[in-house]
C-alpha cells in the first residue's frame, strides 16, 4: 500500500516536472528572442530589459514554486500551518505580479472587501500558490486592457481567496478534465491556457499539500480559480 502510494506520488511529481520544464521554454524563448532583437535591428535600445527581467523572474518563480510544492508534498506529516493574513499576502502578491501584468497589457485589481481573521495555512506556500497561478493566468490572458482580480471574500464554508478574470466559459467540468489530463496532454486546460498551464497545477499541488484545493469560482461577475481556507480557530477566541 505504501509502495503503491509512493509510486503514484512519484508519477505525479514526474508529470508536474515535465510540465514545468516544458513551460519554462516560454519565458526562456521570450528572453532569447529579446536579446536577438537588438542584434537583428542593430539597435540595442530595441531590447526591452523590463521584458527580460520580468520573464526571468516568472521563470524562477515557477521553479521555486514547483520545488516548494515538492517539499510540502513530502513533508506533509510535519507541515507547519500557522495563522496567515490573507489580505496582506494578497497585497504582496498583487505587487509582485504588477510588472508582469503590464507586459501583457493587463492590470492587477486587488479586492479585499472588509476585514478577515487569519487563516490556517503554510505562509510561503499560500503566497507561492497565488503567484504561480497569477503568472500562469497572465501569460494566457487573451485580451488587453483587462484586469486580473485578486480577491478575498467570506462564505459559510470559509474564506475564499481567488484570482478571477474574463473567463466566461470556464467551468468546473473543464477544470476536472484538466486535472485528469495534466502531464498527459500538451494543452490540458485549453479553455484557459494555450500552453500546458504548469503554474496552475503547481499552485494546485501546493494547496493540496495544505489540505485544500483549487476550484472554479466566481466573484463580482468574473470567473476564475479559487481556494477556500479555514479561519484560525486559535486566534478567533483569543
Amino acid at each position, binding site marked *: 500500500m505504501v509502495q503503491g502510494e509512493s509510486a503514484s506520488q512519484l508519477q505525479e511529481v514526474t508529470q508536474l516536472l515535465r510540465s514545468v520544464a*516544458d513551460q519554462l*521554454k*516560454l519565458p*526562456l*524563448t*521570450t528572453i*532569447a*528572442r*529579446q536579446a*536577438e*532583437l537588438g542584434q*537583428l*535591428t542593430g539597435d540595442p535600445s*530595441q531590447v526591452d530589459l523590463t*521584458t527580460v527581467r520580468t*520573464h526571468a523572474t516568472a521563470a524562477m518563480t515557477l521553479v521555486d514554486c514547483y520545488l516548494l510544492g515538492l517539499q510540502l508534498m513530502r513533508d506533509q506529516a510535519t507541515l507547519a500551518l500557522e495563522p496567515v493574513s490573507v489580505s496582506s499576502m494578497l497585497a504582496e502578491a498583487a505587487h509582485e505580479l504588477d510588472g508582469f501584468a503590464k*507586459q*501583457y*497589457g493587463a492590470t492587477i485589481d486587488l479586492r479585499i472587501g472588509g476585514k478577515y481573521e487569519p487563516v490556517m495555512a503554510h505562509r510561503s506556500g499560500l503566497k507561492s500558490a497565488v503567484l504561480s497561478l497569477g503568472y500562469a493566468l497572465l*501569460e*494566457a490572458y*487573451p*485580451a*488587453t486592457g483587462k484586469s486580473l482580480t485578486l480577491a478575498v471574500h467570506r462564505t459559510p464554508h470559509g474564506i475564499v481567496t481567488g484570482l478571477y478574470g474574463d473567463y466566461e*466559459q470556464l467551468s468546473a467540468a473543464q477544470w476536472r478534465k484538466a486535472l485528469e489530463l495534466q502531464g498527459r496532454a*500538451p*494543452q490540458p486546460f*485549453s*479553455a*484557459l*491556457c*494555450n*500552453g500546458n498551464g504548469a503554474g496552475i497545477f503547481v499552485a494546485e499541488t501546493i494547496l493540496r499539500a495544505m489540505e485544500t484545493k483549487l476550484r472554479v469560482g466566481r466573484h463580482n461577475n468574473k470567473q476564475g480559480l479559487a481556494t477556500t481556507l479555514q479561519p484560525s480557530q486559535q486566534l478567533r477566541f483569543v
Partner: protein
Amino acid sequence: MMHVLCIEPDRVLARTYTQALQHAGYTTAYAATAQDAVDAADTKRPDLVVLELQMTGHDGIEFLHEFRSYPEWRDIPVIVNTNLTPAALEPVKPALVELGIGACLYKPYATLQQLVSHVNAQLAN
C-alpha cells in the same frame, strides 16, 4: 508593402516577432485568438500568416481548416512557429502537409533571423 499576420497567443512574444518583421520591411497585424485572427484577416488580407498551433480554446489544426475554408484565404502561405516539439508534431504532419503549410519551425530554437528568412522565402515564391 507585404502584410504578415502573426497569430501568437503570447502577446509579449508576438510583439517581438512583429518588431522583427517590421524591421524586415513588412507591415504586420497580431492576433491572440482564433476569433481575433479571423477578424484581423478580414480587416486586412494578409500575404502570409505565422501561426502558433497551440491556441487558447482552439485547436490549431481545426483553426487552419476553418481558415482555409474561406476562398479568399485558401492560398495564403502559412508558416507554423510552435512550441510543440518535433515529436509532438509528428502525428499532425499529414494534416499540415494537406493544409499546405510552407514551413514548420520549433519556436524555442527558431531565431528571429530564421523566421524572417522563411517569411522572405515564402513570399518570394
